[in-house]
């Protein structure tokens, strides 16, 4: 085994034994504060795109006094090139449910909801079967917590936690004004913890192996391991668990086709890393925070087409609520087309760049704010491809 392969971990999908919900049972015997402290010791950060410390989120929700609280598992996995949550829900749903139940126990929530992306509707039945087993078991553990599945409507922006909540309330999936944040006022105005599927699993992993063991993996800022969805020009597409703190170079060496010119980290809303930055770019909260999407592009790919496709995606998937995102995405798309055609001078790219940066500072939610990520990183590294 070479050094690179040691970065590969197998925590999330492993140890799926037949003795059901043993980690959950064991964890529920501890005090909520003790559990939350362990999460903080483990340094777990959200495994979606944002990376908010999970322990702090649970602590905030615990602190709230309310007649009702909710735990929501965000399974609206819509970032381009991401497919790890689907795999988790298929293979280790029990770990997700355990993570949710422990969160409910810690925060005082009695209701959990899995917000399942509509494209994953086929998972609903098997998930429901597992839920039936879960509810049976939880009775024995004397925990008042139940989970139901909510099928989303299929929009990208529903991955944004407040838009997700709006959609669950039967409204259009549009982001709310923040503050208040969902932990203070979420579903129907009640304190709500929204965590990604992988975050719940990873929490369960931490309770299984202990924070001490967990922090041995990764770096000081980015402890543990994480799932990556590898796709594009690679011989080994699929889901791979890697230690955080890995550089892109290490990943490319392992998965690339020897011809990789760039890796898009974090999907459409993430960053384009060109070859010359492979070695210096660390995947982790101190470097590139990512939900796990890694799309490889080799020399045969046109980066113009890649960027065009991402912008087309955003112009389609913006909820349309706020001005910078609704109109900005359209203008960026039309703008690069016009430059490519020669209808606008090459300098027009600078206007678009300014626009993208203004979208980053003024859009209402992460969607509009992150359009600048692919736009500027692709533009700066592959300017000729965009212009000519």
């Amino acid at each position, binding site marked *: 085994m070479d050094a690179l392969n040691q970065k590969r971990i197998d925590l999330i999908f492993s140890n799926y034994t037949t003795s059901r919900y043993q980690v959950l049972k064991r964890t529920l015997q501890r005090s909520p504060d003790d559990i939350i402290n362990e999460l903080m010791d483990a340094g777990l950060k959200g495994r979606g795109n944002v990376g908010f410390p999970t322990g702090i989120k649970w602590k905030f929700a615990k602190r709230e006094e309310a007649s009702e609280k909710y735990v929501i598992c965000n399974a609206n996995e819509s970032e381009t090139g991401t497919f790890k949550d689907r795999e988790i829900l298929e293979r280790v749903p029990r770990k997700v449910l355990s993570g949710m139940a422990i969160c409910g126990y810690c925060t005082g929530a009695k209701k959990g909801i899995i917000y399942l992306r509509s494209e994953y509707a086929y998972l609903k039945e098997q998930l429901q079967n597992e839920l039936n087993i879960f509810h049976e078991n939880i009775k024995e553990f004397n925990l008042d917590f139940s989970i139901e599945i909510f099928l989303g409507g299929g929009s990208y922006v529903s991955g944004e936690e407040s838009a997700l909540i709006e959609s669950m309330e039967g409204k259009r999936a549009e982001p709310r004004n923040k503050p208040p944040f969902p932990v203070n006022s979420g579903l129907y105005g009640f304190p709500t913890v929204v965590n990604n599927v992988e975050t719940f699993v990873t929490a369960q992993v931490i309770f299984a192996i202990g924070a001490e063991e967990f922090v041995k993996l990764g770096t000081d800022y980015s402890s543990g391991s994480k799932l990556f969805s590898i796709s594009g020009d690679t011989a080994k597409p699929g889901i791979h668990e890697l230690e955080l703190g890995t550089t892109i170079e290490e990943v490319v060496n392992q998965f690339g086709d020897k011809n990789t010119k760039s890796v898009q980290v974090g999907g459409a809303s993430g960053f384009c890393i060109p070859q010359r930055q492979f070695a210096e770019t660390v995947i982790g909260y101190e470097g590139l925070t990512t939900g796990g999407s890694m799309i490889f592009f080799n020399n045969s790919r046109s980066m113009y087409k890649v960027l065009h496709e991402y912008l087309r995606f955003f112009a389609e998937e913006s909820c*349309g609520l706020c001005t910078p995102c609704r109109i900005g995405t359209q203008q960026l798309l039309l703008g690069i087309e016009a430059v490519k055609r020669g209808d606008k001078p090459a300098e027009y790219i600078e206007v678009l760049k300014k*626009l993208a940066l203004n979208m980053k500072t003024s859009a209402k939610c992460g969607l509009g704010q992150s359009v600048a990520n692919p736009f500027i990183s692709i533009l700066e590294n592959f300017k000729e491809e965009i212009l000519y």
Partner: protein
Amino acid sequence: MINLTINNIPVSVPKGNTILDAAHKINMHIPTLCYHPDLKVAGNCRVCVVEVAGSRELVTACSTAVTEGMTVSTNSYRVRTARKTIVELLLSEHNADCTKCYRNGNCELQWLASEYRIGDHVYHDLVKEEEKQPDTSSLCIIKDDSKCVRCQRCVRTCSDLQDVGTFSVVNKGKRQKVSTFYGKPLKDVFCIDCGQCTSRCPTAALTEKPLYEEVWDAVADTSKHVVIATTPAVRVAIGEELGFEYNKQSDSKIIAALKLLGFDSVVDAGYFHDIYIVELCTEFMLKMKQDNENGATTILPYITSCSPGWVEFVSTKYPDMKPLLSRCKSPRLIFGSLIKVYYADKKALNPKDIITVSVTPCTAAKSENAQSQPGIADVDFSITTRELVRMIRQSGIDIQRLDAADYEPLMSEHSGASVLTEVSGGTTEALIRTLSELITGKELDPQMLRIMPLRGENGIKETTVTFSEVRAGWEFLKDKDIRFAVVNGSKYAGTIFGQLKENKKPYHFLEVMICQGGCIGGGGQPIPVSSDLIKARAAILYSLDEISSLKKAHENAWLNNIYREFLTKADLKENQKILYY
């Protein structure tokens, strides 16, 4: 109190206030677009972004609550470029044919464009050709999607203020827009024509359907005798836009202005409001009598129907309540029919040569019509306060410099009660004045001239009246509680109907105004609108009642003339066509 600084100026505001509130307090202007003082905060347009120290992104001043020690900058480089970019983007999505636009000169996007001097179009024009065809199907409201800035003020107004919900946001991304149900024409969807959206739309995406050009044509036609009626709610609001404060002399100057515009006869709608009150009271009394004779066990209210759009609201949302609505015509239709019947007769005019123009604060009035005589509309043209202001502007008249002029004496005398009918709760107050004297046969207790529970901004107001002495024939009302309720805005109708269904609170009489505040808050009033302006207008109307020497509708001597000569009271059927639907 929370302490913060805005552009280094310290300011303290109560907890829960937003950055925008704090900025207002120190007179620091932050531009806004989707924000409206009457509506829930949206935070959509992002025009009001400001910089808060320690925050990576800019935040919207309208939606962000102040926190202790907050350091806000409203004019940093980041703020200015973001704001300018946002205005540029909005313009790229906007059909900016400003010189041809109905809202030219009174458009919030135009102001922003001029403030930030948006010159050459930096971005691609995104206006779709098919959007440039406005929906003109409604009699009252025009919807022009090419002017829409997606601020959703109309959506919030229609759902949250009116409980109607004609508009909603559909689609996402580049196809996102404000739409009617399935994009159907306005005339085919549920809309009560109240026009509240038109008075809150920052641009010309929603406007009233103007009729003032037709009115200009009518006054220019020498073969036509054009009679115009204005109401106090219109007259108190005109000055807001023309820049003068309403006072005792204003009315006579407005009359002079209308005569200069070319109207042959100017009447005060108050006269017809008095007739309306008398008829309303009669119908209400007869209903109570009938209920008594039928031995009705449950009390079902008698509900006013004079607020245009209300009938549509009830028919669609609460059809089972429709039979309870008054059959009495609204004051402006009574104006139309009496002008074309009584006035025509008195002045020896052919009704076909008379054009009746009513000016009200109401856009819905445009769709309200009836014919007392076959083929002759009661009211030919209904225009809003805004349209009248436009006509006065176009004429170049400076109202303040005009000499006083008088109303047509035949049909203009009016009571203080008539003035009240344009404020929420006022119709009920006016009715109680007449009802008391008709039931008791005694002069009204002066304390009953101000029924405070019926005044103010509450959504539902109520009062109970009891008569200890009654005239012969009305013994069944002796010492009985007669319960009155006022619905101040259509959004409260659901609450009161819910209570009725559960029979929790039986009411005998229910006054409904679809617009909050009553007619003074109508959708055709000058833009901008706000609840403060409505309060100010209400105060003026109450003071007009205070100073009026004639307090009760039925004491209007000119009214007695018309009833004696023309509308023989004994025979309701004769009056039916003129005064009732």
